[in-house]
């Protein structure tokens, strides 16, 4: 009985909200409110899941999480509007990582600590990086100029001359090499078991792919531009998720790692990353936000499907649900949220990685003492959490648009969801997001329609401020009853 109390409590809260809503607004409006709530809940969950996993396992309050969400949204938006951007950027990353790989490989030969040499190599590496990227037309490339499927063929703007781009690739390899050599000289070199043939093979193939993309770029560009809108959207999602995962892994590996066990330093650090990331976004994409991205064509035909099954044939932008039209794209957001909840639940419950995460939440030192490389698990979890946040960002882009404040705004909501659910508890986060989303949607409806408790003669109309306050009110209520959140452990 005790074990199910949390579930029971959260079920009662959610049921209470739902009953109140149906009582007041009637089935049709209530359903629309609930679906709006679920849409928000889905986004809060995608952002909160990572926060919760990261806090649970590493005790890190990651204030940079919202930035990842935002970068996911911007990246997705950009790749959706201009998919050929991938041809301009991917080779650079491939070349850089080939260089990094070669560097770690070479560092096996001279495994010694030499900080002066490390600093020297790293600064030469940085200069090389700067030199290689100098004049790269990033801003015109990421400007939100939508290209239509089958649209314009290469322009001078989209592609730099072949030779210029090729020399950039060379510089990238060199700089990756110098940077990783520099890092390995900084700390004491350690023997790692690297399969030499496989390592050489991957270095060569990465470089080869980078140059191949370069050589075939006209053909690739044409095919990319001919992709259907839906495939473009898929590409945008993949790009955002990959960028999010890489950023997460880098943040953990280079910024958070030296500060484990020092909570104040971590908070200052992640807050700093939050501001720096926000400025970076403004630097690359500008201070102005953008209107919601156009939804993929699956959700864009301007008609209203009578029901979900009809939608599968018609791909209308709206669907009648209990007598009201509801945007079909928002159902897609709900679907993504549910899907990710399911995937992460299965991952945690049935895989070895999940088992290690669950054990690590309780006692990561003991997990390491069993012979498991916990730091690698930390990096993986950081990457997964950030990938989820970036996915949240890209699916949010057609719903709320992109703007430089979105990271902070959504992060705040996600934090509240995590706190309501109980810090570090994954299932709790899902429930917290659900409660929060429903409360927010309910608050919004309250403002437009008014609200009457059973037995009241006249409906109360709330001011718009109440809608915004509703989530904080819910948080206050939950924390009054359970100070450590619904699923939180005491103490």
């Amino acid at each position, binding site marked *: 009985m005790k074990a199910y109390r949390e579930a029971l409590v959260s079920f009662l809260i959610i049921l209470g909200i739902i009953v109140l809503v149906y009582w007041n607004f009637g089935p049709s409006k209530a359903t629309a409110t609930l679906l709006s709530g679920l849409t928000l809940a889905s986004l809060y969950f995608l952002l909160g899941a990572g926060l919760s996993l990261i806090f649970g396992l590493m005790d890190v309050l990651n204030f940079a999480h919202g930035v990842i969400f935002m970068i996911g949204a911007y990246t997705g938006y950009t790749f959706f509007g201009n998919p050929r951007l991938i041809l301009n950027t991917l080779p650079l990353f491939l070349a850089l990582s080939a260089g990094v790989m070669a560097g770690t490989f070479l560092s096996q030969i001279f495994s010694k600590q030499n900080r002066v040499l490390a600093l020297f190599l790293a600064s030469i590496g940085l200069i090389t990086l700067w030199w290689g990227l100098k004049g790269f037309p990033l801003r015109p490339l990421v400007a939100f100029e939508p290209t239509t499927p089958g649209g314009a063929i290469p322009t001078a703007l989209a592609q730099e001359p072949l030779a210029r781009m090729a020399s950039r690739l060379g510089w990238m390899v060199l700089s990756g090499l110098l940077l990783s050599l520099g890092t390995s000289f900084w700390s*004491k070199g350690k023997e790692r078991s690297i399969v030499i043939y496989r390592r050489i093979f991957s270095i060569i193939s990465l470089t080869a792919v980078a140059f191949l993309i370069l050589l075939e770029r006209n053909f690739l560009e044409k095919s990319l531009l001919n992709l259907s809108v839906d495939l473009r959207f898929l590409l945008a999602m993949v790009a955002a998720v990959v960028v999010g995962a890489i950023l997460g892994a880098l943040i953990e590996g280079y910024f958070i790692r030296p500060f484990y066990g020092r909570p104040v330093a971590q908070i200052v650090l992640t807050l700093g990353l939050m501001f720096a990331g926000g400025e970076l976004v403004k630097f690359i994409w500008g201070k102005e936000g953008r209107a919601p991205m156009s939804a993929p064509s699956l959700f864009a035909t301007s008609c209203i499907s009578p029901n979900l099954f009809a939608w599968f044939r018609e791909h209308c932008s709206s669907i009648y649900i209990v007598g009201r039209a509801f945007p079909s794209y928002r159902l897609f957001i709900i679907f993504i949220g549910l899907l990710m909840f399911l995937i992460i639940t299965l991952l945690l419950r049935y895989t*070895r990685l999940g*088992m*290690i995460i*669950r*054990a690590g*939440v*309780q*006692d990561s*030192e*003991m*997990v*390491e*003492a*069993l*012979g*498991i*490389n*916990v*730091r690698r698990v930390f990096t993986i979890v950081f990457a997964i959490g950030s990938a989820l946040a970036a996915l949240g960002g890209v699916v949010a882009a057609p719903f709320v648009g992109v703007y430089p404040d979105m990271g902070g705004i959504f992060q705040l909501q996600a934090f509240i969801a995590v706190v309501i659910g109980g810090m570090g508890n994954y299932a709790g986060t899902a429930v917290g997001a659900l409660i929060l989303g429903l409360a927010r949607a309910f608050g919004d409806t309250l403002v437009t329609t008014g609200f009457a408790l059973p037995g009241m003669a006249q409906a109360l109309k709330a001011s718009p401020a109440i809608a915004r306050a509703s989530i904080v009110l819910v948080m206050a209520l939950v924390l009054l009853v359970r100070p450590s959140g619904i699923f939180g452990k005491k103490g």
Partner: protein
Amino acid sequence: MNALLEVQDIHTYIGQFHILQGVSLTVPEGSVTALLGRNGAGKTTTLKSILGLTPPRSGKIIFTGKEIQGLRPYEIASLGIGYVPEHRAIFTNLTVEENLRIAERRKGELKRKADFIFSLFPDLKKLYKLPAGHLSGGQQQMLAIARALVPDNRLLLIDEPSEGLAPLLVRELMSAIRQLSSEVTILLVDQNFQMTSSLATYYTLIDDGRLVSSGLMSELLQEPETVRRYLGAVV
């Protein structure tokens, strides 16, 4: 006498506190060695230093002829050292089975070792699918030892196994450890001198983070004065 583990004059700091100020010990292969000392003498820190959880600042730790100080804890453990920590550190939100499975370093180890583990601790078989948080203190201790038996470990570091257990359970535990000692080398820390003195062949006595003496347990038992002075126990 072939030393499986050799600790040479290690100094370990926790924060700014100089906890171990020169501890040396030798664990001969195939034996039970007791690490003795009063509360706060540095026994647990010694075990943690061996495993790299509180890495020593100076000194050498040699396991199977290889220096291991400075390696990461997971690398040290993977060389074949099992750790049964103080207060058990069972993963209470995992099932008994998962607690054992997580200790696998190669696939299939648990399957191979299951019969041996259940013959040692028959209780665990009945509790296999239960969350480990539902287990009693004694059962959790059994599980903590069983967890260290899943991979092919050559050395077990067992810290305070009898802590908080009823006398009957302590006896059960002792017979299990005795049975184990024919399979694997053990470095044992326990406040219960009766227990350690009957199990161990060798001993190392430390006080205040420093080595006092070491040798055969039978010799120590000839010196009731030392035992009384450093351990407060009566032989």
